């Protein structure tokens, strides 16, 4: 009897091991090559549909390849899983990354893709190539191919502006005008700025910093530019004022930015929202829900003494694909990354999600979106680099906790915040 039960145990364990071995997925992949792709945008409410289309096209054009596209949760869990994979030296063939610090932090598990894009390199904007090169230095190995370019700005609901007695075609430009607009919205019973956790503040700060430092933002890295600059201080105080006056809805700070905050604005709560330019929470998401003619955009707020005005904060590359060093299908992986960033693949993605492609050969979005036209105008103007992806892997977590303590909980004074914020990047 003992022998029987032991045998049963071994059998059960074996079945389990087989059933779960090797990271199987429901769509049991067959074919000579299976390419496993990890993605944080493959969720059903995210970019899954267009990606399925693109994958199908890729498989059509590359017979014998089966794409095993896996949806992983977003930041920060995504990078925990990537780190675990790095630790085990096994995992997917291709994985999505945020170029910048995240990519550079994982540099040693990514292959150099430069040889795979020699012929199409010139199609990409120089800013995107710089960002996907390790350390942000042009000429360094390119380990991620850029799929989108990203940026932040302020979207507003034109209907609500009208209701509040504001001119819907003339968004506030200066700090004073912005405060006045908020006050008018509040008086009309409209939430001035919809909030989604600390991300709203984080994004807003980045927009303001663009004006503070302009093209010199990169100086934050080598210390030639510091947060102790009085202009930055002014920005911090400004955001604090927005919180104190209730223009940034306090109740929104416990609400997740993705997607609750985004959905709240898209559903018509709130006059303004600090959104993104690409992927989610962008001109397309809001135009589709609020009406294409109802969405306005402006990139930042101008202070009287800032040297720079109307700077659009931008990341050369927002997300992209990299190929892992342990992959046995590196060539195909590279071809996959290429497919998503040039030609038909890139076109499908941009068209469906409203992502802005850093590939100049991918033509601009055809349909009529006034908000997009505004965005593109600013993109053609002066761009300021976004500082956040410049620093270490995991910087975002530290920065957000600091913003929490300064703006949400009020634990820090402006001076303390600035000191701590500066300390973070000099670590």
């Amino acid at each position, binding site marked *: 009897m003992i022998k029987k039960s032991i045998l049963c145990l071994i059998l059960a364990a074996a079945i389990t091991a087989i059933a779960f071995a090797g990271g199987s997925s429901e769509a049991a992949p067959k074919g000579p090559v299976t390419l496993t792709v990890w993605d944080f945008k493959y969720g059903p409410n995210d970019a899954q549909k267009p990606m399925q289309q693109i994958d199908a096209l890729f498989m059509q054009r590359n017979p014998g390849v089966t794409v095993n596209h896996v949806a992983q949760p977003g930041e*920060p869990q995504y*990078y*925990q899983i990537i*780190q675990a994979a*790095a*630790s*085990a*030296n096994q995992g997917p063939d291709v994985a999505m990354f945020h170029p910048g610090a995240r990519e550079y*932090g994982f540099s*040693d*598990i990514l292959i150099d893709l430069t040889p795979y894009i020699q012929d199409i390199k010139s199609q990409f904007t120089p800013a995107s190539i710089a960002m996907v090169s390790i350390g942000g230095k042009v000429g360094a190995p390119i380990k991620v191919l850029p799929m989108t370019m990203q940026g932040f700005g302020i979207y507003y609901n034109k209907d609500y502006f009208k209701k509040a007695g504001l001119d819907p075609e003339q968004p506030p430009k200066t700090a004073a005008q912005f405060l006045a607009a908020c006050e008018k919205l509040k008086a009309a019973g409209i939430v001035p700025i919809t909030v989604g956790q*600390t991300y709203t503040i984080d994004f807003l700060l980045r927009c303001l910093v663009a004006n503070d430092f302009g093209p010199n933002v990169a100086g934050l890295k080598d210390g030639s530019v510091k947060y102790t600059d009085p202009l930055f201080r002014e920005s911090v105080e400004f955001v604090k004022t927005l919180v104190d006056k209730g223009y940034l809805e*306090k*109740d*929104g*700070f*416990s*609400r997740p930015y993705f997607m609750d905050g985004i959905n709240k604005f898209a559903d018509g709560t709130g006059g303004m929202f600090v959104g993104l330019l690409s992927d989610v929470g962008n001109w397309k998401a809001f135009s589709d829900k609020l009406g294409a003619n109802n969405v306005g955009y402006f990139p930042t707020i101008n202070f009287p003494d800032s040297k720079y005005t109307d700077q659009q904060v931008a990341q050369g590359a927002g997300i992209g694909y990299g190929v892992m060093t342990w992959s046995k299908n590196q060539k195909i992986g590279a071809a996959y990354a290429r497919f998503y960033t040039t030609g038909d693949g890139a076109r499908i993605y941009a068209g469906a999600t409203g992502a802005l492609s850093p590939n100049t050969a991918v033509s601009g979005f055809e349909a009529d979106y006034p908000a997009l036209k505004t965005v593109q105008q600013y993109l053609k103007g002066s761009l300021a680099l976004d500082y956040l992806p410049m620093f*270490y*892997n*995991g910087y975002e*977590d*530290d920065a957000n*906790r*600091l913003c*929490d*303590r300064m703006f*949400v*909980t009020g*634990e820090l004074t402006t001076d303390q915040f600035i000191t701590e914020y500066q300390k973070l990047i000099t670590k």
Partner: protein
Amino acid sequence: MRHQGLERDGIAPYIFLSPLLALLAAFILYPVVMNLVASLTEWKGYGPMKWTGLANYRGMIADQAFWTSISNTGILVCYIPASTLVTVFVAALLREGLRGWQAYRAIFYIPNLLGPVIIGVVFSIYLRDDGSLNLLIKWAGGPTVRFLTSPSIAINSVGMVQVVWVHLGFGLIYFLAAMNGIDQGVYEAALIDGARFFQTLLHVTVPSIRFAIEFWVVFNFIEVFARMFSYIYTLTRGGPGYGTFTLEYGIFSQGFEKFRVGYSSAWSMVLFLFCAAISVLQIRLMRTRSS
């Protein structure tokens, strides 16, 4: 542990123990030792380990986040007396043979049953500034209570929900069982002498279950130091700011949010020391109990 015969059992016991010991050696002992080693290096969790000596410890002592994590854990410890009082009190109430006491006991057990992850997610929605509890409070005319967005309140939310409320269910079953062992005679004698509820509670019940209370306190210490992570992870991710950032969460954060595994191991050694101390205390208690 006295036995009749004097012969030893040969190697059979060691064979019986081998699966357990093998697993423990591989999955607990080895990691603890490796942790100590890692804490003296700079390491990403994979790739080369760079020897840095005591640098991580020095950095840790200078790190404000570390001290915040200790103080947050300390605040949670302060909820242990509250948990003990409430649990013993309610258990004593139920013991009075009220109608439906078994139903109460079962219902109160549900939070414990659901587990920290579910409870964490449920409360991360329920306690939002625009969540249901605040809606209730608004109706009653109160202000918005920042359960999850004020660091001073957030840590208390953690304490109240996890340390007091969730453990109530388990504690009720535990203390009711312990109270069953009280000599009914002493109890009834006190009642005949005219003692009422609180007097019997203080003079008869509590002294009789002293050991149970001691174990309960130690159990809670273990929970606070070493079993809070799942709950905090799903509730607030250690925020707002560093509001619910406990020592346990800090280990996770340093290792998996900032990818500084060597540094995280230094924090782990501190937690290890606390846990070792509690463990010794627990073993001592058991020794006194069995003697």
